[in-house]
């Protein structure tokens, strides 16, 4: 630990010297980006290792590392650099989604499909209903939303209600990979995260249209948007299956430099999926599911990605940490803290309810619900769709959601790891595979 701490200080000292010493104007965006990314990787890794030595998840270290050196706190890397990491970040995300799909073995899911369905349904209904009502009750007393009309307050509550359902598949798979977990709880956590990802996207579109109707009348309801969404989901899955066929063909017949092929595939998905109205995450998850379940190359796929998984996670979560607008957290932390606490209670309740209804034999019922807490990019992506010119409360809503996600990003992985440790599934991955 002392070794890592001293290495961390040395790196930070080097960066400070370079940033503060008057070498003259050296405007070199290329150098600044590479320099910042190298700094992000080393700092994130070292902080992850330091936190791991006190039994905390490594990804929390990566996130904190990103926050500390990011433009909103330490200022050692600039906003422009963080924005330029978007492409590398997207490629990392698609690789994580491919892993998530690859880890979803239908054989294992068949054993717990009742659990996945009941937990997903229970969480979707309860979190949306209770989340909306409790958010409405809370925000009417806050200085930020109290002055808005009743309709606007309900609109905000409905949107936060949908976002409360969201769970981060990327954080879930990162914790599962880090802890090498395998078992029922793990399969449930991953299965529910992936299914909820699709549900939340559909629900969010419906809620956004409902909000439009509430604020602007029936003209705002556009069936075409809903059809476009359904089309996007169906085509993403179909395209994912096609991509899965290509990947399994490559891995079985050609094999040469598989990691390069996967990187090229993820790059093209990252840049191209949106332009042909496909969801990159869904495409990659579907491709991963196909390779694992419809071909014999599933293990090869996971092992190929795992060769570079650490660097993918470090970059992805460090950049996520650096991109987090901590100013939003500073502004709205009391409301965000309350909303996060309510969400935790609702997740615990809905998970308990589902397990009672479907009679699930969960190994650690008291802590199990914590595996559903992580939230990250999907929620941020959803609120980013709101426009100030359309809804006057959009900016305040974005701030509060970002603040909630900042808290969830720190707490979620820690609590999820704790729940997996309690369930006794940590370290079981290799054993179950063999």
């Amino acid at each position, binding site marked *: 630990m002392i*070794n890592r701490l*001293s*290495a961390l200080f*040395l*790196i930070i000292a*080097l960066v400070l010297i*370079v940033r503060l010493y*008057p*070498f*003259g*104007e*050296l*405007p*070199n*965006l*290329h*150098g*600044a*980006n*590479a*320099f*910042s*990314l*190298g*700094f992000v*990787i*080393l700092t994130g*890794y070292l902080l992850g290792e330091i936190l791991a030595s006190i039994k905390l998840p490594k990804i929390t270290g990566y996130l904190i590392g990103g926050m500390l050196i990011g433009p909103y706190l330490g200022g050692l890397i600039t906003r422009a650099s963080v924005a*330029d*990491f*978007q*492409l*590398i970040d997207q490629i990392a995300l698609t690789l994580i989604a491919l892993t998530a799909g690859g880890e979803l073995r239908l054989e294992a899911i068949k054993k717990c499909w009742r659990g996945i369905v009941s937990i997903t349904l229970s969480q979707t209904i309860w979190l949306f209903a209770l989340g909306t009502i409790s958010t409405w009750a809370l925000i009417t007393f806050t200085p930020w939303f109290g002055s808005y009309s009743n309709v606007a307050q309900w609109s905000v509550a409905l949107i936060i209600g949908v976002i409360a359902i969201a769970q981060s598949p990327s954080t879930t798979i990162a914790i599962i990979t880090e802890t090498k977990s395998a078992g029922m709880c793990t399969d449930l956590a991953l299965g529910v995260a992936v299914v909820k990802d699709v549900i939340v996207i559909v629900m969010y579109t419906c809620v956004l249209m409902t909000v439009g109707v509430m604020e602007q009348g029936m003209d705002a309801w556009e069936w075409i948007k809903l059809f476009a969404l359904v089309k996007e989901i169906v085509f993403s899955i179909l395209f994912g299956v096609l991509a899965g066929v*290509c990947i399994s063909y*490559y891995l079985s*017949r*050609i*094999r*040469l*430099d598989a*990691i*390069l*092929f996967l*990187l*090229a*595939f993820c790059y*093209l998905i990252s*840049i*191209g999926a949106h*332009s*042909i109205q496909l969801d990159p995450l869904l495409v990659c998850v579907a491709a991963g599911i196909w390779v694992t379940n419809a071909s014999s190359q599933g293990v090869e796929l996971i092992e190929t990605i*795992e*060769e*570079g*998984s*650490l*660097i993918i996670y*470090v970059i992805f979560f460090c950049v996520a940490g650096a991109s987090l607008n901590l100013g939003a957290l500073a502004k709205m932390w009391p409301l965000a803290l309350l909303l996060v606490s309510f969400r935790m209670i609702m997740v615990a309740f809905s998970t308990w309810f589902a397990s009672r209804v479907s009679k699930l034999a969960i190994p650690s019922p008291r802590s199990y619900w914590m595996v559903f807490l992580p939230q990250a990019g999907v929620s941020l992506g959803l609120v980013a769709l709101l426009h100030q010119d359309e809804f006057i409360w959009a900016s305040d809503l974005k701030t509060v959601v970002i603040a909630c996600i900042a808290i969830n990003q720190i707490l979620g992985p820690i609590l999820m790891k704790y729940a997996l440790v309690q369930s006794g599934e940590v370290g079981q991955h290799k054993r179950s595979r063999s």
Partner: protein
Amino acid sequence: MNVVLGFVILLLIGFSASRLTLFRERFSLGTQYLFLAGTEFLIIGLLAGPSVSNVLNHDALRQLSPVISLCLGWIGLLIGLQFDKKVIARIPLKVWMVGAIISIITFVVCYGFILISTPWFLHLFGIGFISNGIASQGRRVGISDLAFLLGCIAAVSTYSALALLKRDLDAKGDITKLLQLLTEIRSPIAVLAMGIWYCFNHPTSIGYVGILSGASSSVSDIGVFNPIATPIVHIMSGFEWLGLTLLLGYILGWLLHYLTNHRLGNNEMLLLLAGAVIFSGGLSSYLRLSPLFVNMIMGITLVNLPNFARSRITSRMLETEKPFFVIFMILVGAMWPPITPTVLLLTMVYCVARLGGFWLGSWIAVDWLLEPKQRTKGRLGWAMLPQGGVALAMVVDFALIHPGAIGETAIGVVILAVLIQQLIGPYLLTSVLKSYGDVKPRPNDVDKNGSSTNSRQSVEEPVL
């Protein structure tokens, strides 16, 4: 449309990879070498780049700039890691001297020939030349700088053609050994020369302001190369920049040693190597120093430190060398500017000058220093003609430090020259080795076309 084209390119990668795997042994020596040298990836990069399909567009290239730093740093570190003082001490002084003489003479011939003949040729054909913009109080980065760069790059060769002959034609003997040593020791000399040149021609030292000339083409619009026209004040001298470069390489070498000097998994080792290389490459680029040179110093420091985990670090680097090399070739291919008359003319001048420089250099060095049985004189130099990753890395390095039309022209020249030399290099090498008995033709193994059918080994040849 671009996305569709992107998927076609992806399929092309798969197809070329499968062809390479299944039928490589059936190709002629030259074609095999084109595959080995990663030429197909240069072409894929060109197809994916802004000049053709724009799948790797300007924004993407800017956002992938850390990957370029990583590749440059990786190449620099690998060159540096060869400089273990125990290994270096075993190389005879004569070989060092031969290497140095060949390098220096090739450099001088290329530098002089390009410097003198190019303006004359350009004038003769009525082609205007371009410079990197005019400094307010400094000097123009122009043809002499380009000549210096091309001279240094001319002195570099790649080992991969020799590796191919060793594998396929069972090349062995004194000349083969000598060529291998000469190829390995000459790259660091060229990187060192350019590294020092960058310190004494630092953008801040020469008052260079990176304003693009009007003759810029697509590559100069790429963010990576896009200089920001901000006046720069003179702060440090060339010696100070050199001191800083050496200090950075030394500190970063120690840092990497410190980070990797305990039990680590493969994944962690890769992360730390990549992180440290991107960090040092980016830091050097940020300070407008050479990432290749800084990382080479880092590698030299690392390899000569006590308790250096040679086997773990070097083997991990060599395991992952191929993917990085392929990505680098694709990105360089994407930066490939359109072939202009200037580029074409300069490429011809460069190739002819290099051929002459090698001939003269090896004639003098071998005649003066080597044993009679090794007196292959001028033709020995021609055996070292093939160029590859290091030459491309050096030109990209230049284009990042001194962005603009000169860097762009240099990229065009070096890519084209590398391709030409990849075509003729292996044949000249084979003929030299055959004439000195290091390659013995075996009628059963080699067919009429010169394609070999004997080996089906899956050896990973060094790609640099």
